[in-house]
């Protein structure tokens, strides 16, 4: 088994896949803690559907998918996080509305205008991730690396502000923290991570990368810092395990990573229950 793995890792594209996978999972997990606690678990799902719709538009117009998907998703993220509380439509309903709307329109556009002979194949690839993580170029990996550095820096520099805004927005605003700015910051970073993560696990499964590590960590750990750190560690472990298994047994990369996350979550839940009893 180890021999098979080493032989695989002599190919640069396998190494790229591993690096990109780990970095994206790490970024998603960091954001996930804040999003889950703010009751925004579904935002990953909603935004990825928006990104899917945007990519459909890009395909139809023959544009590079990223250049269309990124700005549209960022705008959608800012609107969705901004809607909470103030709007006539509540946060969860707004997310549901925008996400299924974008999904439907995206599929419709692809069906009407696509020149490809295998529309459902293309759609399936976009939704569930493809082997495209194994076709990443060096530029893609550098892009992932740059993004990870930015997300990490944002988290380190604004750590205490993110904590305060997540824990108690009312208090933060009353004592002079610009809560709107930090919510927008989180929204923008979330959107960027989601668009990049679509390469890895596909549109439908991104939510899993965002919520599972955070939820697993929260079963066991009881302070914000320990939850943040452990969820990053859990995300990395699951990403590595998932990619190894996918390579060895030829399973789809995205769903294998998510499966690893599910197993880890169940484990954490059991540990949490046992430690509570003792």
């Amino acid at each position, binding site marked *: 088994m180890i021999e098979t793995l080493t032989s695989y890792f002599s190919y640069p594209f396998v190494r790229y896949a591993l690096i990109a996978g780990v970095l994206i999972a790490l970024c998603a997990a960091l954001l996930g803690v804040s999003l889950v606690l703010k009751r925004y678990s579904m935002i990953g799902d909603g935004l990825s559907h928006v990104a899917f719709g945007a990519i459909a538009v890009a395909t139809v117009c023959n544009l590079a998918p990223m250049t269309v998907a990124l700005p549209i998703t960022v705008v959608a993220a800012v609107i969705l996080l901004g809607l909470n509380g103030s709007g006539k439509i509540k946060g969860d309903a707004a997310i549901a509305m925008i996400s299924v709307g974008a999904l439907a329109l995206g599929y419709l556009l692809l069906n009407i205008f696509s020149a490809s002979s295998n529309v459902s194949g293309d759609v399936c690839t976009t939704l569930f991730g493809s082997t495209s993580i194994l076709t990443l170029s060096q530029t893609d990996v550098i892009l992932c690396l740059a993004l990870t550095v930015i997300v990490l820096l944002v988290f380190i520099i604004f750590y205490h502000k993110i904590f305060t805004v997540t824990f108690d927005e009312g208090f933060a605003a009353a*004592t002079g923290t610009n809560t709107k700015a930090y919510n927008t910051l989180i929204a923008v970073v979330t959107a960027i991570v989601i668009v990049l993560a679509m390469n890895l696990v596909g549109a439908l499964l991104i939510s899993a990368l965002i919520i599972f590590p955070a939820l697993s960590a929260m079963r066991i750990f*009881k*302070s914000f810092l320990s939850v943040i750190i452990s969820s990053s560690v859990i995300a990395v472990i699951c990403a590595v395990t998932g990619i190894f298994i996918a390579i060895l047994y030829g399973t789809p990369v995205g769903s294998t990573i998510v499966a690893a996350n599910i197993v880890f979550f169940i484990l954490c839940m059991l540990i949490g229950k046992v430690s509570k009893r003792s």
Partner: protein
Amino acid sequence: MALINVNGVSLGYEGKPIVTDLNFSVNKGDYLCIVGENGSGKSTLMKTLLGQKNVLSGKIEFSDGLKQKEIGYLPQQTQVQKDFPASVKEVILSGCLNSCGLRPFYSKKQKDNAAQIMKKLGISDLANKCYRELSGGQQQRVLLARALCATKKLLVLDEPVAGLDPVVTKNLYRLISNINNEGITVIMVSHDIHAAIEFASHILHIGNKPLFFGTKEEYKTSDGCHCFICDGGHDHD
């Protein structure tokens, strides 16, 4: 010298006024209790003092070097906090954020200050406990400590005893009184008129006309007081 001056202020939502012609001032060291029925505009007034809402008309002035973001605020608990993984220390330190400016981390001085406040409120031994596993009274003390980290001058409390049992309530009121005696001005929004009369120095009764503002001695002899105590007093007697 007046810390806050409120002159002819009207408050409301979307242009519809709830409270009109509000005039009062808060001096350094006062303990002002804002009472009134549900929907009378107590919360709106508090949000306006905290700079979260604009006045429809009139003017609120801060003086004596009080900046809006230097107000310590004890909000009501939110749903999010019920399952939030955070240690007591993390929660309390977050009160120091307003004096951080652009600095990303807390200074030693801020941490020492937080430790001192925790000692004063008798929660030093909870520092590494998980916030969501504390009792209601302990949680309020933690949030009070956080508010004290944010201010040296003025505390604004929003129904601080909501949902607490009588013994814990009494202790918390005593704690707030002690803080007030040490020179920190307190503004408390409350339903509890009996506690207001017992602990506060001034009372602002909004909602029914005429509005009342004055010391508690004046309030006891006013008409508004009597009907409010009779209305709300049965469950206490």
